[in-house]
């Protein structure tokens, strides 16, 4: 069997991630459209909540709700790019393993999500004024890493499922939102503990990191197994 070595597969994964990020750098869709949209969502939540005390209290949840809405937009964008000129098929014809495509795209999506979350977090600090505390920084950083990984993996997996199908714009949210509910619960509670917005101690946040890690690992395994059959016709 001429199975490519692990090294080559890793190299190809990075090449696909780099390709997706280069597409973003050239088009600046994230910077010019998705990030402004997500901050706008936060502002609109501020209007809806209409109470400084409550807004401060629910700020962690609002950050993650805005992230989820943006995730859908980003997943649609990353697969629209592929489906537009049959790029996904070309990659398959060129002999690229679907697992490699999955991980490459998930990595690129994770990088973009990570940037978006930093902006959203800063915007929430400015808009809703929750206080930062030094003891919570490690928890916030851990939440940031594991939730981003989980969301990127799920987004890529379901994006591949609906890629190139008519009506996917409306179907993707219905499929993705139930799946990412654990991330919304876990990441929100962890950020609450990190900031202390609900009076929670920092130590109460760490079990949620465990849950988010299990979630990420489950969909890493699920995506590795399922992505091939999904995009292979």
């Amino acid at each position: 069997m001429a199975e490519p070595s692990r090294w080559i597969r890793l190299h190809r994964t990075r090449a696909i991630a780099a390709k997706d990020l280069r597409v973003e750098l050239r088009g600046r869709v994230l910077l010019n459209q998705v990030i402004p949209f997500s901050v706008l969502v936060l502002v609109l939540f501020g209007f809806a909540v209409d109470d400084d005390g409550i807004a401060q209290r629910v700020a962690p949840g609002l950050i993650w709700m805005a992230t989820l809405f943006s995730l859908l937009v980003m997943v649609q964008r990353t697969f629209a790019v592929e489906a537009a000129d049959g790029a996904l098929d070309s990659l398959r014809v060129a002999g690229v393993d679907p697992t490699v495509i999955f991980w490459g795209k998930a990595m690129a999506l994770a990088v973009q999500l990570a940037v978006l979350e930093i902006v959203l977090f800063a915007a929430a600090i400015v808009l809703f004024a929750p206080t930062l505390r030094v003891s919570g920084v490690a928890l916030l950083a851990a939440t940031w890493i594991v939730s981003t990984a989980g969301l990127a993996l799920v987004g890529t997996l379901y994006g591949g499922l609906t890629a190139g199908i008519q009506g996917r714009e409306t179907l993707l949210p219905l499929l993705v939102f139930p799946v990412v509910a654990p991330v919304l619960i876990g990441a929100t509670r962890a950020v609450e503990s990190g900031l202390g917005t609900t009076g929670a101690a920092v130590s109460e946040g760490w079990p949620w990191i465990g849950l988010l890690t299990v979630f990420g690992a489950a969909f890493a395994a699920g995506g590795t197994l399922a992505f091939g059959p999904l995009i292979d016709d």
Partner: protein
Amino acid sequence: MANAPAGGITPTHDTGTRATQVFGTLAALGVAWLCAFGLLFSPADRDQRESVRIMYVHVPSAWVAYLAFGVTAVASALYLLRSSHSLTWDRLAGASAEIGVLFMGVTLVTGMLWGRLSWGVFWTWDARLTSTAFLFVTFLGYLAVRRLGGTQHQRAKRSAVLAMLGVLEIPLVHFSVRLWRSLHQDATVARIEGDPDLDGLMLFSLFVGLIAFTLLYVWLVIHRQRALVLEDALEAHGLDAALVERRAEAALQGGGR
């Protein structure tokens, strides 16, 4: 009779057979029996009083919904794992999922009515309730994916993978809601503690309900599965017919010159 050939029309069979007649009759008898016991013969509960009667339809429909989704998951796994990739498994998965969504829908409605009477609220953020609602939404998505089009094997593979991912998702949702609620004890609603104490006749009524609903499920799944065979056959046949028509047209044009 109705099946006799007349004017060159060949007799056709619908999705009913002896088996569905038997299951259908037994299910109808079971449902009649259940209504009699649930509404008339069985006594009111000491704590829950008359509202306990909702249990006799709520618990069996929840059981059938879980059974149906379980069958969908197993049939999807069999489709993916068996080398034959038989569409029979795919159709069983699809038929069962649709019926599961129906029963899960009525379970949620009756559960809310029962909850209003025994807990005072229609909804509570309990792990079992929340993951059940997510199961319902996940399978609505599953049915939507089945309707996406493409070839029959594309449909089968896509939906089977989705069902497998659902198996991954639901425990995670269940566990995360449980962890969430356990950290927020103060928010749980005041409720009457414990399940109703079931005496002999109540237990028997519930048992009748479980049997009747399981028979109903089997009857519906057989019919639905056969209807899916018909849909697939018509789709394949429609494509063949269109091809034949197109070729005949092309031949006619070619011959005319």
